[in-house]
């Protein structure tokens, strides 16, 4: 079982009416930026948007914004986690989300990047784009389900 040498009741997040919702808003804005810019590349790979620009060029333009979003998300996320670590650790949805997030980040910077930065065949591009969208949808849905299950 998990033990903590830290008392979350002393965490400012649990003693201030505004800090927790504010962090959530920052978290949502962060992932809208990161996932949103990844999704634009995905929709390009699927042939559904930005058809006149090569995926490699689009990826190059979007990557800095994706990174900014990821950094915001990966700072606000652990802070939210710190408000009640044991609750999150025991939460099935949270565990699912962490698994999906790890997969999604690794996938994004390996297979996704490789395929988007080369002239891959449309078939391969479509599969890679669709998997990316599914992974990120799983991360968001897993996050929302923390409040329910």
């Amino acid at each position: 079982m998990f033990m903590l040498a830290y008392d979350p009741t002393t965490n400012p997040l649990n003693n201030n009416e505004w800090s927790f919702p504010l962090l959530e808003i920052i978290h949502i804005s962060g992932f809208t930026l990161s996932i949103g810019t990844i999704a634009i590349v995905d929709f390009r790979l699927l042939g559904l948007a930005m058809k006149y620009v090569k995926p490699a060029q689009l990826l190059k333009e979007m990557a800095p914004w994706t990174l900014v979003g990821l950094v915001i998300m990966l700072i606000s996320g652990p802070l939210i986690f710190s408000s009640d670590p044991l609750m999150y650790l025991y939460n099935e949805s949270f565990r699912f989300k962490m698994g999906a997030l790890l997969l999604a980040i690794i996938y994004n910077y390996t297979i996704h990047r490789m395929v988007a930065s080369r002239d891959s065949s449309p078939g391969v591009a479509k599969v890679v784009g669709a998997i990316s969208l599914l992974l990120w949808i799983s991360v968001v849905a897993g996050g929302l389900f923390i409040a329910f299950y």
Partner: protein
Amino acid sequence: MSLLSFCQWLQSTDFFTAIRGSWYVYPIVMSTHLAGIALFGGMIVVTDLRLLGITMRKRPVADVIRQLRPLKWIGLAIIATCGILMFGSKAEEYYFNTFFRTKLVILTLLGVHALVFRNRVYRRAAEFDTTGRIPGQAKLAASLSLLLWTGMVIAGRGIGYIEPPIGIHAAIPGPYRSMAPPVRYSGAPAPAADGGGSATS
């Protein structure tokens, strides 16, 4: 019929009663709403940043706007449908919710934004590409768009933090789950986040 009694009637219809009573439909609708924001919100941000001359500077403004427009509409349709489903299933609770009202006001302002700037900015983007200069009006439109959509996120998250007036659910049959409760320190293992009713795992 007052607005309040309309809300009460709406949530009492069989369709919305079924959504409210289901343990999984409501969170799935919320997830779809949020995933829609994640997948399509970036397109609004990128369009606005392009108008501000911050990103995709080598791509024509008109091309960025035109290429992202259909997907933005699809995204908006998905997000709004989920929003209507969430509202309808708990219409009375939403009626009393200050953040929900704020969100509707911001949504109206976004409609005004579209009316004001559609012909002045978005349909004239090709001109900006020929002259190579983005006018102040376009930058104003982009900044206001970013501001208003951020407001939508803030008001949207705020909805879950307002407690409904006591006693308004007395007439609702079946299980009732309030809007996503904020996570509060509870100690482990986690109790059901809604305060009871769901199966313990």
